[in-house]
């Protein structure tokens, strides 16, 4: 049982860590395009757009590396849930006000054809949120026992 549950944790860490690292790479590569994607969400004030675009991808990379390498797991799993939660709310907010943004989640390329519908982003992000929330819960519960 115990070994099994440890394996689940490990798999979860690798999945989420992989998602975070994968999501960060294209944004790191194309800062201007990512800034445009942040702008298109029309949530942040203009003076925060560029600093967000500069910092966020690296934050995602650090979180992803921590998750995979098993470093600072409580903090990394907590931050991953928090970030995915924020993204989820941002997409939900824009869906609610009828703004169809290209989400810029994994790729900064802004194709001229219709992107995936907002509903799909919400379902995908909701799934990530459940995974991250569960990982965070498991890590923190394990740690609590250890203290």
């Amino acid at each position, binding site marked *: 049982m115990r070994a099994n549950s440890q394996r689940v944790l490990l798999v979860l860490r690798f999945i989420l860590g992989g998602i975070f690292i994968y999501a960060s790479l294209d944004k790191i590569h194309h800062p201007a395009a990512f800034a445009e994607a942040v702008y298109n969400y029309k949530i942040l004030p203009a003076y925060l757009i560029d600093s967000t675009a500069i910092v966020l991808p690296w934050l995602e990379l650090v979180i992803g590396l921590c998750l995979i390498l098993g470093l600072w797991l409580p903090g*990394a799993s*907590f931050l991953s849930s928090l970030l995915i939660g924020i993204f989820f709310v941002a997409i939900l907010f824009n869906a609610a006000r009828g703004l169809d943004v290209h989400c810029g989640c994994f790729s900064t390329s802004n194709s*001229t054809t219709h992107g995936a519908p907002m509903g799909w982003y919400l379902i995908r992000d909701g799934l990530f949120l459940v995974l991250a929330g569960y990982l965070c819960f498991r890590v923190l519960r394990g740690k609590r026992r250890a203290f």
Partner: protein
Amino acid sequence: MLRQLGLQVLWQVIGILFLGIALGIVVNQVRSDGLSMVGDWSPEAQLAIEPGKTLVIGLDEAQQSFYSKRAVFLDARSPESYQEGHILGARNLPFEEANKYLNAAMCNIPKDSLIITYCDGEGCSLSKDLALELFYMGYDNVRELIDGWNLWKEHGLPTKKGTSPE
């Protein structure tokens, strides 16, 4: 026990935030295509093709070109929105399906003619994206009328319903 765990999470969160922010800023300083920390996201700056030259056109000028028939108006919104009402004479070139509509919409428009793109709402980026796209395709005289459809209606200028421009 809980407090200890909370503190541990807090310190790690601070550590990760610090690392991410530091890496982001340092790499941004070093790389050649780095961004400025506070960018200019005004419509004029976004449509600036070179310092001091922007693709934005004001309503007065757009209106003059409309009455003198010097300009071609392009509606960058969806065909549904276009049908519900558009600037009289405007052609529909939905930016999101630009590839599909481009040839039909741009036929017999010379590269140097005045083209005015518009969509609905100040936040609508379709007409901006369309204007930039056309500019880079070689249409040197393309302009964007920001919030064009709203402005046009507010000022009681000629509009038309249905699928045909006029």
